[in-house]
């Protein structure tokens, strides 16, 4: 069917891009890959799997889980033990298959916990998963044998057993392994949305009672969906273990569960590919901005809150909102309004960042003996001027943005009204 794979060119382009990306940062003088880039790209791969598998719950089944990292983490821990066994020669499996074992570990645990959590839905479900997350975090610190306590467990990924004769000594080999598994997992999750279970997950999300009166037990739908999402999270965790060769408490604790939610939500839960965008963006912020600023988490938080308030369908939702306008060939009419919003928007952001950074350098930065440098100039955080400029940019930009946003709204509504009268079908849609 054309509709199912209509966007396949986008997928192919993304894969080609991901294949080529490490070579864009290849240093031909030293004949070496950029370690920073490879590690960031690898991180993106596993975060894409985490975010997509989380969206199998949040976006597709309407299940608000707070323990998704549990299954990612268990996949990671299990993989460390699998790799150690393989290294000792006790597990005659090639490296390429090991992530699947991590996935099965996630699946196994998700079956156990899913059985409990999916007895309920909505708020009660969320609370049970919160409990499960805390339970596992505590267990990870208590059971040293498997989890290694605070120090975690470590391994060596060079198990000398590969389908393709690879050693995985270099980061680029690991990157391609991650890319391959990210692709497999993504395609599998996409396939699932096109099966009876995937559709009934959407159906129980929209109206669980109606699903019951069509012969489906919503609990079974929730349970299967939850278990399968644990399988994929486990694969993500396995890739984490292979990349870092150490798995600690962080891989299954609450903050990573929250991260899964952030990535899925910011990217957009209503479109299949949305969480991919979220995972890429958050990883970029995490790896890139965290180098430049102590306060990167503040920015992620503010971004999340802004998205929840102004764009609840996420980045992907925002993009999809332009589809009818694009189809009518009227996207050009939005360019000027967009620029008019962008300028005050940028001013607002700069003002906000300025104030956050000034505060940060006044407190944490001072303690660390750092100074704020902007364009080669040292900035005195005790002077009035930088604070004043930032505050003016923030509030001035904010006020200006309000005016421009209203103008943008008018143009947007006008365009939508045009489309409505042009298309009889759309008339009912928007009425």
């Amino acid at each position, binding site marked *: 069917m054309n509709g199912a794979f209509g966007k396949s060119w986008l997928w192919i382009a993304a894969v080609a891009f991901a294949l080529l990306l490490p070579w864009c940062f290849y240093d031909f003088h030293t004949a070496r890959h950029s370690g920073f880039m490879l590690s960031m790209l690898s991180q993106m791969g596993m975060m894409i799997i985490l975010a997509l598998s989380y969206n199998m719950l949040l976006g597709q089944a309407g299940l608000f889980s707070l323990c998704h990292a549990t299954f990612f983490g268990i996949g990671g821990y299990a993989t460390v033990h699998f790799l150690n066994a393989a290294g000792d020669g006790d597990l005659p499996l090639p490296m390429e298959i090991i992530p699947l074992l991590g996935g099965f570990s996630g699946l196994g645990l998700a079956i156990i916990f899913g059985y409990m959590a999916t007895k309920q839905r909505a708020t009660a479900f969320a609370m049970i998963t919160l409990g499960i997350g805390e339970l596992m975090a505590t267990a990870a610190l208590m059971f040293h044998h498997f989890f290694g306590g605070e120090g975690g467990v470590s391994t060596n990924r060079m198990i000398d057993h590969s389908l393709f004769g690879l050693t995985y000594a270099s980061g680029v080999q690991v990157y391609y392994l991650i890319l391959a598994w990210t692709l497999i997992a993504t395609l599998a999750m996409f396939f699932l949305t096109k099966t*009876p279970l*995937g559709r009934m997950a959407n*159906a129980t999300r*929209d*109206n669980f009672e*109606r699903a*019951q009166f069509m012969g489906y037990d919503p609990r079974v739908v929730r349970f299967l969906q939850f278990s399968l999402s644990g399988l994929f999270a486990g694969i993500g965790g396995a890739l984490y273990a292979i990349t870092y060769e150490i798995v600690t408490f962080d891989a299954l604790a609450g903050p990573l569960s929250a991260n899964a939610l952030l990535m899925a939500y910011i990217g957009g839960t209503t479109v299949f590919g949305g969480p991919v965008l979220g995972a890429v963006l958050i990883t970029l912020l995490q790896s890139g901005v965290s180098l430049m600023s102590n306060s990167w988490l503040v920015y992620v938080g503010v971004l999340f809150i802004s998205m929840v308030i102004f764009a609840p369908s996420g980045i992907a939702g925002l993009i999809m909102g332009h589809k009818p306008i694009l189809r009518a060939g009227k996207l050009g009419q939005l360019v000027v309004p967009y620029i008019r919003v962008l300028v005050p928007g940028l001013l607002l952001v700069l003002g906000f960042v300025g104030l956050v950074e000034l505060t940060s350098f006044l407190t944490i930065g001072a303690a660390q003996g750092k100074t704020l440098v902007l364009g080669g100039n040292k900035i005195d955080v005790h002077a009035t001027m930088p604070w004043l400029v930032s505050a003016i940019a923030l509030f001035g930009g904010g006020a200006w943005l309000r005016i421009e946003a209203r103008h943008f709204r008018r143009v947007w509504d006008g365009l939508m009204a045009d489309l409505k009268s042009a298309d009889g*079908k759309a008339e*009912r849609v928007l009425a």
Partner: protein
Amino acid sequence: MSIPASGTPALSIREITKSFGQTAIIRGVSLDIAAGERHAIIGPNGAGKTTCFNLISGRFPISSGEIYLNGERIDQLPPHKINRMGLSRSFQITSIFQRMSVFENLRCALLWSRGYRYSFWSPLWMQRELNAQAEFLLEDLNLHTRRDLPAGLLSYAEQRALEIGMTIAGGASVILLDEPTAGMSNTETDYAMDLIRRVTKGKTLVMVEHDMKVVFDLADVITVLVYGQVIASGPPETVRANPAVQEAYLGALVE
């Protein structure tokens, strides 16, 4: 689904009661509905008509009594099991999958009865027969021009038509319709009646309805429910002539 012995009522309700806390809503209702019958349940507001439907379809548990579907007891079963045994219902408040397309709504309604169960390995786009059946239903409901629209964006009358379509899609032999024409204009009501007649042909139909024109046009048997009790049940003429009914309900409406 077992084939009922001739004479076994399609739906048999024996002395059911339902209380919410101290309040008795259904106070001992018994009804036998024959296979193929078109049965209307009427009564003033708060008589317990919708509650009755909720009890029969398993949405709420009954407080006491027994319910049989084609001779098999169903009153202890959850809704999805009752549905699999051949009973399907619609809702007074439109109950569709708002964010899914109209086509997807109908296809989902077909899934269980076509044996797909919880399959996560059958790609839906390859299920020729299933997709053809969903398309056929779309045509039948006159919704084919709305195929890919999210169901929540349909007009009210269209949503009601979709609701009926989803109710009958699974091929249930007993259909419960809860106020299928509520809130419709006259033209819409006529169209809906036509649709109901068409898609429930050969099935047992039980409906709650306020519109007396619809009731007397469609029903073979009318049951009048007042304060959780049956005060009359029989063919339309008998019920219309019943003095208790006239006093309690119809009198106010039919001069």
